C-alpha cells in the first residue's frame, strides 16, 4: 500500500481489468497515477483475490481467471500508486475525489478521473429472495475465490447467463455438489438470438462455452424453461418452488439457492457525479452515456469497463487502455494523431473481444416475469417495499422512481437503490405502459457509500461553504 500524494494527474477508481489496464498504461506513459479500490487486493470481481486465493489448484477457477495475474504484474511494475481499502464516496465536477480509508475521510484532487467501478449482479426479485441462504451466484463465486468456500447440503442454482454456468462448472471442478440448475432462459430468446449466431460463432467463445455447458449438463440435472421461482423457509431458505412452462408448481429441498440473471453497470458514482445516462434496451439497464473513448458528459471524467455498459472482462481491459490514452491526450501528453495511432491495436482487440456480444445479450436477456415481479415480492430489500406498493403509488399518479422514493422510501436505504432501482423502473414502466427510458432513474447524490458523520465533518471547508451554514 502506498502513501498517497497530495494530487494526481490521473485517478482510476476500481481495480478490476479496466482499472488495472488503464492505470498501468497511464503510469507507464508518465502520468502520476493512483488506483483506488475498496477491496483489499487487486482484481475486481472477475479476478477477485487472484494474488492470494486459497484455491491453489489452477484447474478449479480456470485459465480465464488466472489471466488476471497477467494484469496485476505489469501494474505493480508500472509506478502507479495503489490504495486498496479506499472507498470513493464522491467525485465532484471539479474533479475532487472524496474517499474514505481506514475510517478517515479525505479529498483527493486529480486532473482526470477514470471510473472503472464495473458491474453488479442484476437484482433478481422473487418471493423469498431476502431469506438467509439465498444469494447471488456471483456472491458464491466470490466466496469460492477469496475463501475456498462452497455451498453444501442441497444446492440449487437458478437463472440464466454465462456466469451461472461458469459458477456451476467451477463448483464441479472443486468437487462441490449441485442438486439442480433451474434454467430460466426464455424459449423465445433462442429464436431472437439466432440472427446473431454468425458473429458469435466467429468469436473465441464458442468452443470454450460449449465445452463448459456440456460438462455441466453431463453432471448436473438441468430443468429448462422455468417460468416462476419462489424461495420458502422458516428463518432461512428450506425449499425452492418453481414452475416449468405453464406446468404445475414443483418443490425442491434447498439449503442454498444461488440466483443469477446477468449483470448491469454499477452506475451510482457516475450518476451522483452528474454524468448523463441513457436506457440500453438490448441490455435492459441504465448506462452512463460515453463516447468511443469512454468520456462522459462531465469534463475530465471517463468510464472504462462494464460500468459504461456490459462488455465482459477482456473488453474491459481494452476499454481501460483506450480511456487511458484519451486521458493522456486530454492532459496534453499525446497529440490526437499519436493517441489514435497508439489506440489502433487496442481498438482492434476490443472489436474482437466484443464479437458475439449481441448473441449473448439476446439469448440471456432475463424474462419479464423475473424483471417485473408479482405483487407480494419485495423489490426494495432495505426498506422492505413490495411491487404492489409501487403499483399502488403509480395509481396515485406517480410517474417515476424519484416520486416512489419519496412516497415509499423505496431506494432510501443504505444500498441507495442499487438493488431496487432497476426493478422499480421496470415495474413503473410496465404499470404505465411506457418504456423505462421514459420513466427515468433515481437521482443520486454523494456520499454513494456511507461515511461517518465524523469523517464528513473532518473534510476541508471553503470560507463560503462555512458562511453558507453560519450566516444565521
Amino acid at each position, binding site marked *: 500500500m502506498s502513501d498517497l500524494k497530495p494530487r494526481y494527474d490521473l485517478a482510476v477508481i476500481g481495480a478490476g481489468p479496466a482499472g488495472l489496464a488503464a492505470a498501468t498504461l497511464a503510469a507507464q506513459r508518465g502520468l502520476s497515477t493512483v488506483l483506488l479500490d475498496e477491496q483489499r487486493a487487486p482484481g475486481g470481481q472477475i479476478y477477485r483475490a487472484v494474488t492470494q486465493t486459497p484455491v491453489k489448484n489452477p484447474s478449479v477457477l480456470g485459465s480465464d481467471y488466472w489471466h488476471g495475474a497477467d494484469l496485476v504484474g505489469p501494474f505493480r511494475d508500472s509506478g502507479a500508486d495503489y490504495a486498496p481499502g479506499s472507498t470513493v464516496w464522491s467525485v465532484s465536477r471539479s474533479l475532487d475525489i472524496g474517499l474514505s480509508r481506514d475510517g478517515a475521510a479525505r479529498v483527493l484532487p486529480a486532473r482526470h478521473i477514470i471510473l472503472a467501478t464495473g458491474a453488479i449482479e442484476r437484482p433478481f426479485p422473487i418471493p423469498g429472495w431476502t431469506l438467509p441462504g439465498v444469494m447471488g451466484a456471483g456472491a458464491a463465486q466470490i466466496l469460492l475465490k477469496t475463501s475456498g468456500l462452497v455451498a453444501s447440503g442441497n444446492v440449487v442454482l437458478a437463472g440464466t447467463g454465462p456466469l451461472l454456468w461458469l459458477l456451476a462448472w467451477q463448483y464441479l471442478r472443486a468437487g462441490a455438489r449441485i442438486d439442480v440448475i433451474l434454467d430460466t432462459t426464455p424459449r423465445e430468446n433462442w429464436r431472437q438470438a439466432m440472427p446473431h449466431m454468425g458473429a458469435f460463432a466467429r468469436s473465441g467463445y464458442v468452443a470454450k462455452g460449449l465445452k463448459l455447458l456440456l460438462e455441466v449438463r453431463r453432471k448436473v440435472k438441468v430443468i429448462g424453461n422455468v417460468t416462476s421461482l419462489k424461495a420458502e423457509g422458516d428463518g432461512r431458505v428450506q425449499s425452492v418452488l418453481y414452475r416449468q412452462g405453464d406446468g404445475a408448481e414443483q418443490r425442491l429441498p434447498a439449503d442454498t439457492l444461488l440466483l443469477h440473471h446477468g449483470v448491469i453497470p454499477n452506475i451510482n458514482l457516475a450518476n451522483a457525479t452528474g454524468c448523463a445516462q441513457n436506457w440500453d434496451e438490448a441490455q435492459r439497464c441504465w448506462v452512463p452515456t460515453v463516447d468511443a473513448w469512454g468520456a462522459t458528459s462531465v469534463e475530465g471524467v471517463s468510464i472504462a469497463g462494464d460500468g459504461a455498459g456490459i462488455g465482459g472482462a477482456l473488453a474491459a481491459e481494452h476499454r481501460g487502455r483506450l480511456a487511458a490514452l484519451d486521458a493522456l491526450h486530454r492532459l496534453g501528453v499525446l497529440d490526437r494523431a499519436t493517441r489514435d495511432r497508439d489506440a489502433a491495436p487496442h481498438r482492434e482487440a476490443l472489436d474482437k473481444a466484443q464479437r458475439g456480444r449481441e448473441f449473448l445479450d439476446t439469448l440471456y436477456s432475463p424474462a419479464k416475469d423475473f424483471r417485473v415481479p408479482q405483487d407480494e415480492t419485495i423489490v426494495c430489500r432495505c426498506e422492505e417495499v413490495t411491487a404492489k406498493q409501487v403499483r399502488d403509488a403509480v395509481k396515485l*399518479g406517480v410517474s417515476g422512481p424519484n416520486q416512489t422514493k419519496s412516497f415509499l422510501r423505496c431506494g432510501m436505504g443504505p444500498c441507495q437503490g442499487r438493488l431496487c432501482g432497476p426493478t422499480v423502473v421496470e415495474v413503473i414502466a410496465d404499470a404505465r405502459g411506457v418504456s423505462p427510458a421514459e420513466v427515468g432513474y433515481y437521482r443520486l*447524490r454523494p456520499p454513494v457509500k456511507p461515511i461517518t458523520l465524523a469523517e464528513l465533518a473532518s473534510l476541508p471547508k471553503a470560507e463560503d461553504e462555512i458562511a453558507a451554514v453560519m450566516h444565521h
Partner: protein
Amino acid sequence: MTQTTRSDYDVAVIGGGLVGSAIAWGLAQHGQKVAILDEGDIAVRPSRGNFALVWVQGKGLGLPEYAGWTKRSADNWTGFSAQLREQTGIDVCYERPGGFLPLLSEAEMEHRANQLKRLHNQPNVVRYDYEMMDRAAVAKEMPFIGKDVVGASYCPLDGHCNSLKLLRALHTGISLSGVAYLPNHRVERIEQREGGFRMVTASGEVRSGKVVIAAGHDGRRLAPMVGLDAPVRPERGHIIVTEKTAPFLKFPVGFIRQTDEGGVMIGDSFEDVGLDTTVRNGVTSTIADRAIRIFPLLGKLNVVRTWAALRVLTPDGFPIYEQSTSMPGAFVATCHSGVTLAANHALALAPHIAAGGLPDEFTAFSARRFHVPAAA
C-alpha cells in the same frame, strides 16, 4: 379535439407539492371539483426535500400576523393529522414534544434572547410560552449534549412529523376525495376565459372556474399571467440523513431531529445559487461539524444520504396569499414553511378559496407589501 366552453373543474391547483396538495385536499372536503396540475418525476420540489418541522418559535419578527398564523396552524396540526389518518390510514407521525434551538456561545445566546424578546414585544402579537434555558436545564432533558452547548431557546409548541408520509397522505386523501391529479402537466400559460381560466400545459389544456397558483418557484412566472405577483427566489439548503438508529432523541433540536424511522436528519444552510441542487461536500461537512459539537454521539453514525433542496423565499421570508383583483377567481399561495402551514392551508385557507374570496385577515399577506414606493 372537441371545443367546449364548459369548465372541466371548479378549481385548478397548479403545483402538487405540499402547499398545492394541502389546498386541494381542503377544497375537496368542501365539495369542490378539483384538479392538480403538476410536473413529472424530476422537478424542483422542496416538498420532497424538506426538514419536516412544525415549528413556531422565532417566527413572525417583522410581521406579527405571521406569528399568529403559524401558531394557529401548529394548533390545528393535531386535528389535521388525525383527519388524514382516519381518511387514508396513513399516520404522518406528528408529535409535539416542544423544540430546542441549541446555542453554542454567549453571543449566540444573547442574540437569540433579543430576537425573541423583540418578536414577542410587537403590538398585537399572539401570546405563547417560550423559554431561554441555560446549559444545566438543557442537559436535564438531554444529558448527552456536547461541551460547547451554552444553552438553548425552548418552545413547547414546536413539533415535527414525517413530511414524506404527509405528502403521501395528502395524495392518497385527494385521490380518495375524487381530485384529479395530473402529473406531467407543467403549465405553460394561464388565460382568462369567460367565467373561468384556461391552462395550457405540456399535456394539453385544462379549464376551470378558479385557479390557485401553488407552483413553488414557478409562481414567479405564473402569477403575473393572472394579475398577481409572487416575487420568490430559491435558497439552497443541504440536508444529511444517517442510518436508522434506536430512538435516543425525543425532541426536534433546531436543525437536528430523529425521524420516526430512526434516521437522524441534520440540515441547515442558506445559499443563493439559482435552481442548482448540487450537493457541496464542504457545506455538508460544516453542518456535520456543528451537529457533532451539539451531540458528540452523532459522530459515529453513518451518513446514508445527503441532498440539497431549494426553499421558496419571498423578499421578507413571509408567505404570500392573495386573490387577483383584475381577474377574480385567481389566487396565489406561496410560503417557505409548507409543512408547518399545511394544517392551515387545508383547514383555514382552502374554505375561503372554495367560497370565492379571501377575508380581510389575509390582507397582511398580500404581495402589495413589496410595492411600497421607496421613500423619497
